[in-house]
């Protein structure tokens, strides 16, 4: 499934002038973004600023209205005259891992089966091999002992860690994390952040939408601030969070301090 290896500092995700409209409402108004291989790109911004929509555009859960995008070697154009077949879309998504705010684990499958499902059904990996990999991934997120447990018996933090393992099982070129700690009780946030921190150390390319500013400061390679469907400022975590220039970003961060 994996194609040509990329150079270590290669651009893994390249988004150009991406827009997404719902009727007359433009939720994403022309966003461009470069994410290098192994980088954790954070996206912050107020609720409703379009950051989640933007993220969902990257794995085509929302179909962008115009613009273009490249993930690894796969380039896509959006807009009139550019329609992807269902098979092309599915193939593209299989290379992009997605973790949702509400986990969305498959309730009729155990933790292990949830993690095996993608490789077995989509990639046609042999069951034994998929099981082996899934067990390793569950161990990695600290849930080896929960392999035969159904999602309804998992805490929010555990469920989200299984969901991360499920996305990793597809060996994606990039992971998209959509406010993955926002639905968790405060005491469960830490265990999920710990898994994400570990992924950044391992050099997983990630685009992370979050409200966890302290976490962003700690692990983000780059941060962009989105407001009203546009990227208003971008830079290193330090630049953006400690020396914000844009007044909207300044007032946004002030609300977080208080």
């Amino acid at each position, binding site marked *: 499934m994996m194609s040509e290896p990329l150079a270590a500092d290669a651009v893994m995700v390249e988004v150009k002038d991406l827009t997404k409209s719902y009727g007359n409402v433009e939720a994403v108004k022309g966003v461009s973004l470069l994410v290098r291989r192994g980088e954790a790109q954070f996206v912050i911004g107020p609720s409703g600023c379009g950051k989640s929509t933007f993220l969902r555009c990257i794995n085509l859960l929302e179909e962008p209205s115009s613009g273009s995008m490249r993930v690894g070697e796969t380039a896509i154009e959006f807009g009139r005259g550019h329609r992807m077949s269902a098979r092309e879309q*599915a193939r593209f998504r299989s290379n992009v891992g*997605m973790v949702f705010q509400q986990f969305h684990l498959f309730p009729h499958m155990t933790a292990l089966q949830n993690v095996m499902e993608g490789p077995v059904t989509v990639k046609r990996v042999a069951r034994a091999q998929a099981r082996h990999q899934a067990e390793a991934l569950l161990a990695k997120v600290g849930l080896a002992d929960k392999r035969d447990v159904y999602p309804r018996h998992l805490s929010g933090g555990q469920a989200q860690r299984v969901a991360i393992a499920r996305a990793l099982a597809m060996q994606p070129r990039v992971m998209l994390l959509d406010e993955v700690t926002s639905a968790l009780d405060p005491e469960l946030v830490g265990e999920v952040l710990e898994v994400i921190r570990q992924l950044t150390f391992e050099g997983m390319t990630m685009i992370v939408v979050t409200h966890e500013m302290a976490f962003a400061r700690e692990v983000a390679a780059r941060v962009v601030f989105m407001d009203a469907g546009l990227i208003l400022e971008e830079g290193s975590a330090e630049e953006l969070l400690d020396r914000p220039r844009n007044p909207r970003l300044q007032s946004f961060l002030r609300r977080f301090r208080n």
Partner: protein
Amino acid sequence: MEYSWDFSIVFLRPGNWARGFAVTMVYAVATTVAGLVLGLVCGMVMLSRHTILASPIHGYVQFFRSTPLLIQIVWFYYALPVVIGLNIPAWLAAGLGLTLYMGAFSAEIFRAGIMSIDKGQWQAARALGMMPVQMMRRIILPQATRRMVPPFVNQSVLQLKNTSLLSVVAVPDLMYTGTLLVSETFRPLEIYTALAVFYFIILYPLQRLAKLLEQRDDV
């Protein structure tokens, strides 16, 4: 009020009862199965984005859910042969109404069952790179089926009781057998009471099954 009950007359025509029971069961099973298949197909069309195909199906489902079954049966029996100018056999005409009725309700159960699955499940399946067929087979149907089984069993119970309406077009089912016996013996109280007991004996186990399925808690 003096009324001397005499239940012995109920057992006057054992052969007729046996035949009535067989006819009722055959119609119930055949029209339920055919209706389920029809409902499955219609439900899938209703869920698809083919509006050209889906709108007539929606019309059919709404129409059959909103009109009395008795009229449907009578209409198929008497009016359909006139309308299509074909002499379809009486047994088929009678069964057609029941089948379309079951089909309409099944289509709605099927559609509602699929729609009841959380949007997040579809998104998670899609995000893994599943094709629509894989998504249905691996993620949506296994969850939806469990939710659809109790309403399907309930609808089948109703369907078996509804076969009693076939007696108005002289299909010799349990009800028809009873009605004939009433006109012979002038003992409607005993015979209808016995009929109720017959239907109860057939349907009580099914009801229990539906209850068990509702209480099942493996998801």
